[in-house]
């Protein structure tokens, strides 16, 4: 009998190299599948078992996953853009123009970065509305809501810091207005304004600071909190099933909740 692609994949999973990387072993029993998730550094954040019903579109509209998807697009388009962009006053605007008109596929990458950024802000809000109106923020998931609020703030800060980088009139005045809003904070407002811009006006220091925050600090902090956010879904008993939903779902969710309190 001719081998199918699935057979070849089974052979690959039996090789020594594969076994040295993935410890869960061959086989497709429930245990093997659970181990494949549990023993993977990325997947172990998630539950080893999820009810099929919870993977349906209507439960979450996949808004959290889509938000994470836009984040991945932003990282993978942002890094190539960094190769052609100098965060300095004489070059920033010219580099932005070069990315649009000179660099191969630069226009595509820049536009993809821009539209994904808009989409991410929209999806974060949509995700929060969905969680809120579904009531999924309530105990035992209240702390994951708090992490979500932190992630909202990080998303908005990423959006804000990225806005300055093209160094055009729109960017300059938007950051002038935005940083002056920070000055309105009582007592420490002017200090915050000075530290944020690295000076009294939007200038070379501000451009460099926003660049470092946008490309380094904020994405790293975002990744950290995203990891905790995903991990908490498992720790808080999986995705939220509403009381009005079929009884079997609510009943099944009880052991998960009991496990959490151990």
């Amino acid at each position, binding site marked *: 009998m001719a081998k199918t692609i699935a057979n070849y994949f089974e052979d690959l999973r039996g090789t020594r190299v594969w076994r040295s990387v993935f410890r869960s072993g061959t086989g497709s029993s429930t245990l093997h599948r659970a181990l494949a998730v549990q023993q993977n550094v990325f997947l172990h954040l998630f539950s080893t078992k999820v009810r099929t019903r919870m993977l349906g579109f209507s439960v979450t509209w996949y808004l959290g996953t889509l938000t994470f998807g836009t984040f991945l697009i932003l990282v993978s388009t942002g890094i190539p853009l960094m190769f052609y962009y100098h965060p300095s006053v004489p070059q920033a605007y010219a580099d932005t123009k070069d990315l649009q008109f000179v660099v191969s596929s630069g226009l595509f990458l820049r536009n993809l970065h821009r539209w994904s950024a808009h989409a991410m802000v929209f999806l974060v809000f949509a995700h929060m509305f969905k969680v809120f109106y579904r009531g999924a923020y309530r105990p035992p998931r209240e702390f994951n809501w708090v992490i979500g609020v932190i992630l909202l703030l990080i998303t908005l800060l990423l959006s804000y810091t990225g806005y300055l980088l093209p160094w055009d009139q729109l960017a300059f*005045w938007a950051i*002038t*207005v935005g*940083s*002056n*809003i920070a000055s309105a904070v009582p007592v420490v407002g002017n200090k915050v304004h*000075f*530290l944020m811009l*690295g*000076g*009294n*006006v939007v*200038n*070379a*220091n501000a451009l460099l600071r926003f660049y470092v925050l946008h490309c380094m600090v904020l994405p790293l902090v975002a990744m950290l909190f995203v990891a905790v956010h995903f991990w908490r879904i498992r720790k808080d008993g999986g995705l939220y099933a509403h009381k009005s939903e079929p009884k079997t779902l609510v009943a099944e969710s009880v052991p998960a909740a009991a496990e959490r309190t151990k």
Partner: protein
Amino acid sequence: MSEKKQLVPQEATPEFNRRAFFAKLGLGSLSIAAAGTAAFAYQFLSPNVLFEPSPIVNAGKPESYPVDSVTLDMNSGIYLIHAKEGFFALSAVCTHLGCLTAWKPELGIIACPCHGSKFKREGQKIEGPAPKPLPWLQTWVSDEGDLMVDRSINIRPMQFVRT
């Protein structure tokens, strides 16, 4: 010997023994180090030297400004105004959120494009979200006969410079 043995448990009271002392010492040191790190970070992030334009602007000869004229210098963000009473300089930076305002000669007012604040030629607010009038800036005539403006010093309004 027997007396000494009896003393030992009394010295090691549960409230404050050697272990608790070192724990407190360690936590105290860490707190001081954390405060030091915060102070270090704050000082490091505050630039000591700034490469920003000087607040003092040379606005040129007074003769170049006709009577009843309002001239905006976009680079320095000031209006040089030659009124009938004399010269004065007004900050062109909106007191709301820092946008550059513009002189509207057809209306005789100063207007901010960002959020709609409007000011009279002497800086008083007409309408809009601006919390304060546009400040008058220190203005004088240099020894060379040039009009000078110091953007960092606000003065009381209606102090005109005669030449």
